[in-house]
């Protein structure tokens, strides 16, 4: 929006217009002391750092991400080797297999570590897709109003009217065929409605904000007001909801895989491990299901802690 300086551009006649402003008698001065300038995001980081549970959650989450990246490299066994188990239904935890093995003798620890990146990737990218679509649709809806707003919001109503799980299962059967990318796209495309509604609600309240009126009063254009003034102020709650959506997407992926509609059963994901372990549970072989289940639970809990911290940190009414 800023035009580059051109040769014939008019410089502000600072000397011509307001010399008297500067040279005039001493004006009353409002004295105030400030040590450092922090913007809204820096302030949010500062508030976040004071939230103990959020920090614990963040540390846990970073550890899980680290495991997802370097875990498969340092894992002691190949996840798709089938050495065969000594006992039927898998061997219990031992020094060679700290989390036991499944009925085919595959190391559960290797399975958990290899499943991490799939769960995280599905959770993260599906949420990012839902977020991008939701923010764009919500911004347009909230900024435009009228007929456009009405049509887009009825579209959101339709996405809410159809049971999500049912739609995911159908879509997974038709388009998925066990592919991770397909699952990410399906989750993302079916879940943007929530974000769009939230962004729109934020826009509707911010549109009436004093600073938006003040920006209009100095002649700032509509596009600039929408994307530079309103959108950054609308993002706080959206980030919080996206964090929680990511956690729920990880659970959803495990659930869909558990029902054998998700990632191909041959892939070592947490959901698949749970699914395969179903029969072994009856034999008392708890470890096969326990460790992948714990991995899911810890990941979701850590993300929810982070989301809780973000909620407090990004609350516009919160003060440092």
């Amino acid at each position, binding site marked *: *929006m*800023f*035009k*580059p*300086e*051109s040769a014939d*551009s*008019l*410089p*502000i006649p*600072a000397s011509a*217009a*307001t010399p*008297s*402003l*500067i040279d*005039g*008698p001493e*004006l*009353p*001065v*409002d*004295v*105030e002391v*400030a040590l450092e*300038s*922090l*913007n*809204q995001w820096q*302030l949010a980081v500062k508030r976040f750092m004071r939230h103990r549970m959020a920090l614990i959650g963040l540390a846990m989450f970073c550890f899980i991400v680290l495991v997802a990246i370097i875990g498969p490299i340092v894992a002691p066994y190949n996840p798709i080797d089938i050495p065969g188990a000594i006992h039927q239904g898998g061997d219990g935890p031992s020094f060679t297999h700290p989390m036991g093995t499944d009925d085919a003798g595959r190391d559960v620890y290797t399975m958990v570590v290899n499943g991490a990146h799939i769960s995280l990737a599905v959770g993260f990218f599906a949420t990012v897709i839902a977020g991008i679509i939701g923010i764009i649709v919500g911004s347009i809806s909230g900024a435009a109003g009228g007929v456009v707003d009405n049509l887009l919001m009825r579209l959101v109503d339709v996405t809410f009217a159809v049971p999500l799980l049912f739609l995911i299962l159908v879509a997974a059967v038709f388009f998925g065929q066990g592919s991770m990318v397909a699952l990410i796209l399906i989750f993302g495309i079916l879940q943007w409605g929530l974000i769009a509604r939230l962004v729109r609600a934020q826009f509707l309240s911010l549109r009436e*904000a*004093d*600073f938006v*009126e*003040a*920006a*209009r*009063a*100095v*002649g*700032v*254009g509509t596009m600039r007001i929408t994307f530079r*003034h309103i959108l*950054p*102020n609308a993002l706080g709650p959206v980030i919080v909801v996206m964090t929680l959506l990511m956690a729920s997407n990880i659970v959803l992926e495990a659930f869909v895989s558990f029902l054998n509609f998700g990632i191909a059963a041959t892939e070592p994901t947490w959901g698949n491990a749970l699914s395969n372990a179903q029969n072994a549970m009856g034999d008392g072989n708890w470890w096969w299901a326990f460790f992948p289940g714990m991995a899911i639970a810890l990941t979701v809990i850590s993300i929810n802690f982070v989301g809780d911290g973000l909620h407090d940190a990004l609350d*516009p009414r919160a003060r440092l």
Partner: protein
Amino acid sequence: MSTVIDLSHVAEAAPGRSIGQKPPDDVLLDVRGLKTYFHVLDGTVPAVDGVDFQIKRGETLGLVGESGCGKSVTSLTIMRLIDIPPGEIAAGEIWFDGVDILSLSPSEMRDIRGSEMSMIFQEPMTSLNPVFTVGYQIAEAVKAHRNVSKNSARDRAIEMLAAVGIPSPERRFKQYPHELSGGMRQRVMIAMALSCDPKLIIADEPTTALDVTIQAQILELMKSIQERTGTALLLITHDLAVVAETVERIAVMYAGRIVEAGTAEEVLLDPKHPYTQGLIASIPSTVPRGQRLNVIKGTVPNPFRMPTGCRFEPRCPHAFGPCKDFDPPLRLTGPNRESACWLQYPPGELPVKETDAPPATPVPVERVGH
């Protein structure tokens, strides 16, 4: 109700102000018969219902009235910042610098806003965007109207911060609104409004949200800047003390209309309209200690059920004959002095209710019988 009111005195009250005619060059802002209505669920609210006033170049006018009388809506209408719908500019003309701005396109109006006329708002705490530095926001106002580089916009912003009395402006430039006090933020808002050398500044209750000492500083600042730059100022307030100190002329508003206008001295020392008289009498300091304060009896009329006659009639201690049925237009009572009250009209010019006269042609009633 079909009485024709003689409107010749209106033309007398406003020479050269007939509808559609360009005002003389020394008049910067000429608002004529302005009506801004809001269409809400319960009906139509006539927030501004026939407002007339003028501001000459470099002049300061105080628009005074109680809450809900339409002062702010008047100012927002002049800036064309009313949301349409639900708002509607139902009638009138706003001549600004020789142009009827109601005829301008939205983009032409955007060019005027901030550069030719700008506005200072009531709430400095919420009128700055929390995600940008104050300097960025002043520079943005400059860049919206001037084709300048980022650096010269920045220089201009720092210059403006210095001009409104903010110490170490280079450092303040980089600070965020939450780091400034209310008084400082209002200075920033003033810097922003002044950054493009506007011909008119509209200040909508600029000191209401500030404490008394800061109020005095901000008024002093606005006065000194106005004197030095020669910018015209429309100061909107409910505080008579504020206008008494700051402006040359006063227009008093009641229930969407101007009821009295004149120089500050004339209006405050010799109010002609009973509403203005009531306002001045209700200032606490005019009453000896220990006595009950004077009040204007009654309340502002319900906007859905405006009185058919003078809008102040139900509360007026001097109401007489024509007041209940006829709405008094503004009448020139002295040079540049106007008042909308039947008391200011000679008895011969007062309208008379028609119902006393016999009905013109009675409708014949036909009996239907067997």
